[in-house]
């Protein structure tokens, strides 16, 4: 049995979580998932400004802080902290933790290969709309193929104590040590599916240990000290989800079911670079306090393609708000919305979308919201999105004047006019597996 922990569900997750996983009980592998789709375009921009950046900057200091303990306890770290610059990330880790052996996985970054891929006849057409990539070619900010667990396994085979990848799948982080230690093969579809589903359960950190859980949330103990998840993996593909004793949170089959369904599409066809996992074959059993054992998982052969995520400059947006108090707060907010829309129209401003919603009334649930009587206060939130930065900027001046010139009891304007933000959009595409060659480098 090996213990694989996940101490980070996204870049910005709780900084103490990985430290506590190392300190509060035994683990063999510490996985850290830093990359959301939006993260790739952010790190690409940072790299364009400074060629030594472009990775999750929280990661090297964490390795410096944990270096001694990782070495003493024989814990290996696997992280997709590399962003679009895994080599510089690794160099910074070596600078702060010189005693750790560090390996990087390269080959997912296609930013400099887009034109050559197109020239070779790979259309990189949008998976959802079918549009050719030429539509947005000159606005691309980043392009990465999602790579699976086997390139990470190659890095583990070097004996590295820290493995840094760029855009690997979230599930590959936890699957890789199982393949490495149990000798699973590239065609062991059931085993690869089992490890993939283990990775899916833990990839969002504490969301499988009681975080964001609807079941009896009022009684979930000690959120402030919530335990992050640990997979106790067996060579036959069964595994148990648990956490260190004495930590907060709760692990129960109801909690694990919620996370299994999180961001799920077709449950019979969960496609990763490593396999296709069938979520309708999963068997769950509560096997002790804060222990859920998972078995029975079936998988099918991997697809011939890899997914590519391309980020491109889309346009601009801004969102501002005003608060209206009782009485008739909702009616005042909707009148203010009509005034703003009329003024935008008078100015001749054109946007792709103008969206208004009323927080405290129905912003989250829309037509599905619980009808409520006259509420104490609401927040009107109005946003616009469009291709022209100047027009979006002009919109940001149209809210605050209503404090003096619109319906009564407007407040909540203390932050001034809202900032204009760049909109980065995503272009999902496929490439044949053979077009992507990964390689591993040990950083001296």
């Amino acid at each position, binding site marked *: 049995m090996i213990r694989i922990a996940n101490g980070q569900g996204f870049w910005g997750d709780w900084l103490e979580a990985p430290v506590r996983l190392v300190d509060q009980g035994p683990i063999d592998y510490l996985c850290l998932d830093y990359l959301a*789709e*939006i993260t790739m375009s952010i790190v690409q921009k940072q790299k364009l400004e400074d060629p030594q950046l472009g990775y999750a900057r929280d990661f090297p200091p964490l390795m410096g802080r944990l270096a001694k303990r990782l070495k003493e306890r024989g814990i290996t770290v696997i992280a997709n902290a590399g962003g679009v610059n895994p080599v510089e990330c690794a160099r910074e880790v070596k600078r702060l933790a010189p005693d750790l052996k560090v390996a990087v996985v390269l080959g997912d970054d296609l930013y400099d290969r887009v034109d050559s891929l197109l020239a070779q006849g790979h259309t990189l057409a949008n998976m*959802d709309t079918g549009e050719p990539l030429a539509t947005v070619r000159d606005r691309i900010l980043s392009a990465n193929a999602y790579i699976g667990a086997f390139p990470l396994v190659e890095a583990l085979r070097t004996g590295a104590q820290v493995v840094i990848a760029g855009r690997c799948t979230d599930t590959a982080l936890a699957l890789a040590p199982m393949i490495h230690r149990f000798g699973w093969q590239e065609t062991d579809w059931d085993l690869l599916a089992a490890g993939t589903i283990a990775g899916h359960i833990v990839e969002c950190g504490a969301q499988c240990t009681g975080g*964001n*859980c*609807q*079941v009896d949330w009022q009684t979930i103990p000690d959120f402030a000290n919530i335990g992050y998840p640990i997979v106790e993996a067996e060579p036959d593909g069964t595994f148990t989800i648990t956490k260190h004793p004495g930590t907060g949170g709760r692990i129960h089959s*109801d909690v694990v*079911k*919620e*996370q*299994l*369904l*999180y*961001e*799920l*599409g*077709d*449950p*019979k066809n969960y496609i990763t670079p490593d396999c296709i996992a069938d*979520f*309708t*074959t*999963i*068997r*769950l059993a509560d096997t002790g306090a804060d222990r859920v054992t998972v078995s029975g998982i079936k998988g099918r052969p991997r697809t011939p393609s890899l997914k590519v995520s391309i980020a491109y400059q*889309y346009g601009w*947006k801004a*969102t501002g708000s005003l608060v209206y108090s009782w009485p008739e707060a909702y009616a005042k907010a909707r009148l203010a919305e009509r005034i703003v829309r009329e003024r935008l129209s008078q100015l001749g401003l054109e946007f792709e*979308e103008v*969206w208004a*919603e009323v*927080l405290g009334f129905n*912003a*989250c*649930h*829309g*037509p*599905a*919201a*619980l009808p409520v009587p006259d509420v104490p206060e609401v927040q009107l*939130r109005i*946003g*616009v*999105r469009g291709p022209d930065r100047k027009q979006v900027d002009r919109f940001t001046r149209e809210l605050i004047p209503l404090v003096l010139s619109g319906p009564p009891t407007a407040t909540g304007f203390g932050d001034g006019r809202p900032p204009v933000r760049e*909109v*980065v*959009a*995503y272009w*999902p595409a496929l490439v044949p597996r053979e077009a992507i060659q990964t390689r591993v480098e040990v950083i001296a």
Partner: protein
Amino acid sequence: MKIPLSQIAHARSGDKGDTANIGVIAYAEKHYPILLREVTAERVKTFFGSFVQGRVERFELPNLGALNFLLHESLGGGGTLSLRIDAQGKTYGAALLRMEIEVTPGEL
């Protein structure tokens, strides 16, 4: 008789681009057939009204006593484009639990 879905099920929701997903899970296995009968794709689409511009798909997970719904074009463009406060549909699961379903006392 009519009961809110929350009496027999819990839920979690999330996003993939402009598509929201809602996993609806029966607390007790014996209530899964009620979910199958009462919580149809059509009813979910109607419940969310103008929030769902596209179609609603339903998938069955009898092994977990659960249904998974995909609500296409329901997040105002999704992820980075969306102007909505809940651009990732994080609260859609809670919303759906308010839906009323029809059951017989013997089923509960």
